[in-house]
């Protein structure tokens, strides 16, 4: 699975995710990627999110929208909301994976509870951050 989130000069956010699914999948199985609110979500008021991991858990926990809701209804920061959902709620459910998130102010979060995640980020004119392992 691959994904991107961004905020532009107008302060508008967007999210995009694409995947080939699971190796050897059957029955037209679909994971969280195309399910708005589970694997992909964007809202100028809160954040834009793209997820990756074991899709079934991300759908059952409605992960992307869950992070946005904690910001919108509970006033969590992006970091707090991501910690709550990826490091606690998803782990408690047994779901492995992570997400990338950005707010309209340009804050970025890249939480994941697996051993590694291919990720990169770049704000304004800062150096690009690229990482694979924890």
């Amino acid at each position, binding site marked *: 699975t691959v994904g991107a989130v961004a905020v532009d000069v107008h302060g508008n956010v967007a999210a995009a995710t*694409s995947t080939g699914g699971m190796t050897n999948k059957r029955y037209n199985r679909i994971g969280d990627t195309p399910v708005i609110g589970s694997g992909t979500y964007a809202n100028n008021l809160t954040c834009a999110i793209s997820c990756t991991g074991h899709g079934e858990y991300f759908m059952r926990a409605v992960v992307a929208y869950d992070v946005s809701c904690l910001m919108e209804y509970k006033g969590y920061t992006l970091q707090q909301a991501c910690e709550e959902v990826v490091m606690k709620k998803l782990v408690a459910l047994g779901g492995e994976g992570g997400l990338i998130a950005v707010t309209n102010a340009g804050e970025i979060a890249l939480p994941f509870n697996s051993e*590694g995640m291919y990720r*990169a*980020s770049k704000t304004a004119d800062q150096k690009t951050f690229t990482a694979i392992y924890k």
Partner: protein
Amino acid sequence: MNKTAIAIHGGAGTITRSSLTSTQETAYKAALQEAIELGHKALTQGKSAVEAVALAVGSLEDCPLFNAGRGSVFTKEGKHEMDAAIMCGKTLKAGAVAGVRSIKNPILLARTIMEHSEHVMLSGYGAEEFALNHGIAFAPERYFFDTFRFEQWSQVRDSDTYQLDHSENHDKKFG
């Protein structure tokens, strides 16, 4: 003028230091770098966040190292079935496809659904018909063939196991 920012991912899993050679690691990092620079350049040119994420994901879809687009994994039938979604934080409009085959860049199809239909999600054959009607590029089966993906699939093909990308010891996964 708002501060711009972009982040991308290429999947998560049991990626351990021992599972990648330094050559592979360099290749992955180079692909991530290329994709994020593409998205970042669009943002610095004043393009929209939707345009930036579509460009970045499209770049990763074209790279066989990642499980999307050209690098998509094999299904039980030995095919490539892809899913994608895109959403605009300003309009809350969204586009998604599920279970499509032979589409070169599924994120482009998802974006076309968002911008040129009243729907949010289309799937399977119908989504491919929509793609045909809107001039979305298709690619032949061999475009999606990758030796590493084929070997990964061959290990589990005759079992009932299915496997997350970036998983190393799958027997730990699903019985």
